[in-house]
C-alpha cells in the first residue's frame, strides 16, 4: 500500500510550510540573536524571555490568541481586511505566521549561543585590521557561527514539520491549504485507518531521526575541522 494522492498533498504542503518558515526565521532570527548576544540593554532579559515563550506555552494558548487576533474583529484581522486580503485563519499564510512565532526560539537560541561563544576577541583583531562592521559580521561571525546556523535551520524545519496543536486550532483542516502531515495522521487515526496513519507516521519517525543524526554528525565534523 502506497501513499494516496491526498497523503502526498499533505506531505508536500508540510514541506512547503517548513521551508518557508525556516527561510523567514533565518532572516528574522539572525539579527535578533546577534542583538541578544551583544547588547547590554536591560531589555535583553525581557526579550529573551519573550522569545523563549513558545517553548513553555501550550500550543492552545498561541492558537487561541492567534484566532482572536486574526479574526475579523481582532487588530491583525482588521488590518488584513483593510489591506483587502481578508482574514488569515484557515489560510496557508496564517499557518506560516503561526509557525514563525511557534518556532522562534528554535531559531534564535542556537544562533545566540553560537554568536556568544565566538567572544569579542576575533572582532577586536579584525577591527584593528580595519574591517568594517558588515565585513566583520559576514567574514567572521557567520562562518564561525556555522554550526549554530545549521542547528537553527534544522531545528526550525523539523519543529515546524512536527507542529500540531496550533494548526489544529487555526487551520480548519483544508486539503492542500492547511491540512498538514500531523493533521492527516490524526484524521487517519480518528477514522481507524491505521494502515495509512502508520505509513505517514513511520515516515515522519525515520525522517526526524535522520535529520537529528545528520545534525550531530555535521556538528562533530565542524568541530574536528576546527581543531
Amino acid at each position, binding site marked *: 500500500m502506497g501513499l494516496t494522492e491526498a497523503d502526498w498533498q499533505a506531505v508536500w504542503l508540510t514541506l512547503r510550510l517548513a521551508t518557508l518558515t525556516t527561510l523567514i526565521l533565518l532572516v528574522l532570527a539572525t539579527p535578533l540573536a546577534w542583538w541578544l548576544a551583544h547588547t547590554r540593554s536591560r531589555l535583553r532579559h525581557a526579550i529573551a524571555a519573550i522569545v523563549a515563550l513558545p517553548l513553555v506555552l501550550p500550543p492552545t494558548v498561541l492558537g487561541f490568541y492567534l484566532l482572536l487576533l486574526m479574526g*475579523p474583529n481582532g487588530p491583525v484581522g482588521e488590518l488584513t481586511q483593510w489591506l483587502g486580503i481578508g482574514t488569515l485563519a484557515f489560510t496557508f499564510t496564517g499557518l506560516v505566521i503561526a509557525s514563525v512565532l511557534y518556532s522562534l526560539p528554535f531559531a534564535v537560541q542556537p544562533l545566540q549561543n553560537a554568536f556568544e561563544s565566538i567572544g569579542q576577541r576575533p572582532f577586536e583583531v579584525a577591527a584593528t585590521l580595519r574591517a568594517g562592521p558588515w565585513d566583520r559580521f559576514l567574514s567572521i561571525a557567520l562562518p564561525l557561527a556555522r554550526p549554530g546556523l545549521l542547528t537553527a535551520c534544522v531545528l526550525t524545519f523539523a519543529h515546524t514539520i512536527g507542529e500540531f496543536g496550533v494548526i489544529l486550532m487555526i487551520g*480548519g483542516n483544508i486539503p492542500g491549504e492547511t491540512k498538514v502531515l500531523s493533521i492527516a495522521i490524526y484524521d487517519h487515526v480518528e477514522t481507524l485507518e491505521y494502515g495509512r496513519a502508520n505509513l505517514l507516521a513511520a515516515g515522519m519517525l525515520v525522517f526526524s531521526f535522520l535529520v537529528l543524526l545528520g545534525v550531530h554528525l555535521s556538528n562533530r565534523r565542524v568541530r574536528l575541522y576546527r581543531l
Partner: protein
Amino acid sequence: MNSSLRILLRSLLGALLVLALPLRAEELRLAVASNFTAAFQQLAPRFEQATGHRLKPSFGSTGKLYAQIRQGAPFEILLAADDQHGKLLIESGLGVPGSEFIYAVGRLVLWSAQPELVGGSHEILASERFRRLAIANPQTAPYGAAAIETLETLGLHETLNSKLVRGENIAQALQFTYSGNAELGFIAWAQLKALPGKQQGSFWLVPEDLHEPIRQEAILLRQGEDSQAAQAFLDFLQSPQTRALLKEWGYDTPEAEPR
C-alpha cells in the same frame, strides 16, 4: 440550644453526609458527542442531585469517541450523535445488545454570528457574501456528514468545497463561526439555542428532508453492564422530564422506540 451550636451541628452533619456519599455513590464515565455538551451540562447536576452518583463526561466527535472505545477507553456509556456507531460497538462485542435507544433527534442549522447575514433561507450559500463555511469533520462527526448531505441535496457541494473549513468536532465548528473567522457554519440547533440571546446572530434551520435524520443513540458499554449508576442514567435520559427539557433545548425526542 443556642444558634451557633446549632449551626455547628448542622455543618458537622453536612460534612458527614458528604463524606458518606461516595460509599454508595458511583462515578460514571460517559463518552458524549460534542453537540450534546450544553444539554449534558444542564442535565448532569439534576441527575447528580437526584441520585448522588457523579458524572464524568468526555466530549468529542462520535467517530473519535468510537475509536477511543475500540482502543479500550474506560467509558460506561456512549451518547453518540448517530445510530451507526452504537451498532458497530455491539457487533464488536463492546456494547451491550438491546441497551441502545434514541435519546434525541438533532437538528442542523446554518448559522452566522452576524445578524442579518443568513436571512432565514439557504440563499446565502449560493452568494459570494462569505469566504468560509465551517462544518464538523464529516469523517468523524455525524453533524458534519449531515451538513455535506445537505449541500449535496442543494447541489452546492461542488461549488462550496473550496470554502469549507472542517472543525475537529461540531464544537470547534461553532467556535470558528462564533469567533467570526468563518462567516457561516453548520452547527447543531441545540448549540445555537444554548448561546446567550444577544449573540444568536442569524440562522436558517435546515429542513429535515434535506439530510438523513440525525438520530442520536445512547448505548450501554460492556464496562457499564453491572453499574447501577449507568442504568439509572439511561432511565433518567428517557424520563418524560428529561425529554421535555431536551425538546426545549432544541432536540426532537422520538416516541418511545421499541427496545
